[in-house]
């Protein structure tokens, strides 16, 4: 598998009226061809800023690249001009958003919005783009595409709008698709349809996907690798099996523990106490220190380095240091043994 994207030490800050908010602080990850990388974390952990940095959708100022690089096809995206980015956005890398109603243009027919990218990047004529639009709507499973293509977004249901967004995003066969909470605004039955669709299209088209979500169920369903973000940093990364069955970071334990189990007992959920750190004044050491049940003195003072647990799994936690006390995986974070209907 070849590597198509590499993010190195990326730091992005925002200048606000009262302070500099360090939204992401030294993020490292890569993306291989045809894989799905899930970035999980709670609001404010920096997952959306990471995605928007890759697309260069962050307004600068107030945002700025403080450090690091985003290597795509041998070139650093952070150094590109706006003009150069226009040839990458929608063609090489495209993005779908959480809320399909606000991200589609309400004054343009869906057909026109699909044609836009085709005419710009594939140099199609209007007629060709229209026909290709119908084919794309068919591909994403919109019934009666010949009529639907001339309709406006408000005439579509939520699930259909997200399908139309996916059709637009995939119109130029991008190498990378960034999906920022693509199913959060949808009902479960529609969510299942959309996840199924994305998986099918990935097999057909071969796009690599960066999936941003806070829903661990969606991660288990769709991802091949996972990066767990907290307080602007990736605290743990690994294959989906490593993260779910052999997690090493207490925050990952907390996330897994706070999910109710369907086979479940009705006992108390293992909540993570407290709330996330303020990134205008980020902690000097590990960002999770204030909420971590195993926090030590070292955690407060120094950010832990990554420990390589396998070729694919890396965790930044002082508990993995040889001097630290041994802590067992808490029972609440053990995944498995679930029996499910369906």
């Amino acid at each position: 598998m070849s590597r198509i994207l590499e993010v190195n030490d990326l730091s992005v800050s925002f200048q606000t009226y009262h302070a500099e908010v360090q939204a992401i602080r030294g993020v490292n990850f890569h993306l291989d061809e045809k894989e799905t990388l899930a970035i999980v974390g709670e609001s404010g952990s920096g997952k959306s800023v990471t995605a928007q940095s890759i697309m260069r959708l962050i307004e600068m100022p107030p945002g700025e690249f403080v450090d690091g690089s985003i290597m795509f096809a041998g070139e650093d995206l952070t150094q590109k001009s706006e003009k150069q980015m226009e040839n990458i956005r929608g063609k090489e890398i495209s993005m779908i958003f959480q809320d399909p109603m606000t991200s589609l243009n309400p004054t343009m027919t869906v057909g026109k919005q699909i044609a836009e990218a085709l005419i710009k990047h594939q140099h199609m004529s209007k007629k060709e783009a229209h026909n290709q639009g119908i084919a794309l709507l068919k591909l994403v499973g919109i019934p009666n595409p010949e009529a639907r293509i001339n309709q406006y977004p408000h005439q579509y249901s939520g699930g259909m709008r997200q399908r139309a967004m996916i059709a637009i995003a995939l119109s130029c066969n991008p190498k990378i698709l960034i999906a920022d909470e693509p199913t959060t605004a949808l009902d479960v039955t529609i969510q299942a349809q959309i996840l199924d669709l994305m998986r099918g299209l990935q097999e057909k088209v071969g796009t690599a996907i960066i999936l941003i979500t806070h829903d661990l169920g969606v991660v288990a369903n769709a991802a091949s690798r996972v990066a767990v973000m907290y307080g602007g940093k990736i605290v743990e990364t690994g294959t989906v099996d490593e993260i779910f069955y052999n997690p090493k970071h207490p925050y990952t334990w907390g996330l897994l523990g706070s999910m109710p189990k369907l086979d479940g007992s009705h006992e108390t959920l293992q909540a993570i106490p407290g709330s996330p750190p303020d990134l205008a004044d980020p902690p000097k050491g590990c960002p999770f220190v204030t909420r971590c049940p195993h926090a030590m003195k070292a955690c407060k003072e120094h950010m832990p380095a990554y420990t390589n647990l396998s070729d694919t799994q890396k965790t930044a936690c002082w508990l993995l240091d040889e001097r630290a006390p041994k802590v067992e995986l808490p029972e609440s974070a053990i995944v498995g043994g679930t029996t499910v209907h369906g």
Partner: protein
Amino acid sequence: MDNNRERLLKIENLKKHFKIDRNTVLKAVDGISFDIYKGETFGLVGESGCGKSTAGRTILRLHEATEGEVYFADENVHTKKSAKQLKKFNRSMQMIFQDPYASLNPRMTVKDIIAEGIDIHGLAKNKQDRLNRINSLLETVGLNRDHGNRYPHEFSGGQRQRIGIARALAVDPDFIVADEPISALDVSIQAQVVNLLKRLQKERGLTFLFIAHDLSMVKHISDRVGVMYLGNMAEIAASDDLYAEPLHPYTQALLSAIPIADPKVERSRDRIIVEGDVPSPVDPPSGCRFRTRCPFAMDVCAKVDPVFQKYKKDHWVACHLYDEDYNEDYKVIQ
């Protein structure tokens, strides 16, 4: 649940229709009947637009019912009431809202938000008593005393939801409708709020109607669960029973659509994927509302409304697959 449970609410053929214009009526809730027992949590689930929030609000009389009755402790909620009667009644039923940002007045301090009910109902003997009550409520929901002097914007989503809960508790209600109280919160914070609700229920003997679309959380918190679809009740069962043996094809599809946070399970699962979208409640399908998306739909489903009938103890379903007359088709589903 034991047999001698006491009924707190009885909802009978409740309907709430909204007039959109002269010729169109949106039937948000269209004839639902169920009981809620004292001290239990009744979960109400369904997709957006199925009428679950409208049902919750109509039960509290935040909407006037179009038809049907709600009895709270044997008293009819929707009859004409004097202001005094209504006030007494409002004290026993409270609501926690979905959006902790929109449901707290930004110009009031947390103290005054919580005390509003205490003031209206005249529950405090004097200023000191009022303050004591506020402080103990703040502590009950896990906030500090000095948080009372701050304004809502100074709090995070989870903390605001705690303020909303304290406000609901202030008048010492028997019954609380919690309308998606956790869907706006992060996963790690959701668990905090759910644990708080469960603890309060135990300590104060509260009865909850818990409205949500997150089925795994509903299962966790509820004793019994009702599944709604397009204004109708599709199925009601004890929560473990519903998840172990869902009867209605819609319930089956809904459960099978929840992604499980376990990659091995996800890889080996066979999903029932329902096609298409929820039809419009302005012009719902004839007969069974779910028939347009149901993998087991039969001719009869378009013609006859299915009856909401008892399948076994504590398990009710509205589906022709379980009718005596049509039971040759029952085999399809097993």
